[in-house]
């Protein structure tokens, strides 16, 4: 699992470098184009993912303490955090697209939609992982192997959070 997680982290690190390389070539354009983004939406989504991650930490604690009902509730709360992110992102994309900020309008827009789109893909995968974790959390007791799989799934959700923590300031705040 960690090989996959570190592989994903490395892939995103390459994306960050590519984004900054494009930015170096067209700094003025990037500064102007960045004004099409809504930092408030990015901020709310950061809070949602941080809180969602906290619920997954609490769920893992409940799973280890053999409290399946509490763990299931925590995972459901984490899932709602992810769903909230998707809803905010949907309205954010819709507003940007209707104002003409389309992916092929300039390199900043292309980078923005590629990076946030790829992150959103991870987030939706992560929501699927949370559904799987919920089925495991219902079991009265997990084997060591099952627990390791559940821990890996929880780490994937934290990875989704971690990547957004970098993407938000990189795309929305750093000028």
């Amino acid at each position, binding site marked *: 699992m960690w090989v996959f997680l570190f592989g994903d982290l490395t892939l995103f690190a390459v994306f960050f470098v590519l984004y900054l390389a494009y930015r170096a070539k067209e700094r003025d354009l990037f500064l102007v184009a960045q004004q099409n983004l809504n930092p408030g939406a990015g901020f709310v989504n950061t809070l949602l993912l941080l809180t969602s*991650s*906290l619920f997954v*930490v609490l769920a893992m604690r409940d799973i280890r303490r053999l409290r399946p009902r509490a763990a299931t509730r925590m995972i459901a709360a984490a899932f709602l955090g992810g769903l909230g992110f998707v809803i905010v992102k949907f309205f954010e994309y819709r507003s940007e697209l209707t104002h003409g900020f389309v992916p092929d309008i300039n390199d900043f827009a292309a980078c923005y939609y590629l990076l946030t789109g790829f992150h959103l893909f991870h987030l939706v995968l992560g929501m699927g992982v949370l559904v799987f974790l919920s089925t495991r959390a219902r079991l009265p007791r997990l084997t060591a192997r099952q627990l390791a799989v559940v821990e890996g799934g929880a780490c994937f959700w*934290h990875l989704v*959070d971690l990547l957004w923590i970098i993407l938000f*300031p990189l795309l929305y*705040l750093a000028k």
Partner: protein
Amino acid sequence: MLRQRFMLVWVALIAATCLSFWLGGGHRAPVREAAVSVAVLAVAFVKIRLVGLYFMELKNAPLVLRAIFEGYVVLVAGTVITLYLAA
């Protein structure tokens, strides 16, 4: 409940996010802009280290895993901030 370390970490993460949003919003003189942007990026890397160590539980993981993660944070933070300043 706040005595639990991960709760304190969550509070710190939320506070750091609010600080970054407050710092990163609005327009400033170019010199100050660069300093604020570097600060906001640096705070993000401190935040991901906290997520890795306390949420992903790398603090209690085998040393090699933790070392790879810490190395990633330092390397990517250094590269991102250097490239940002070079532009």
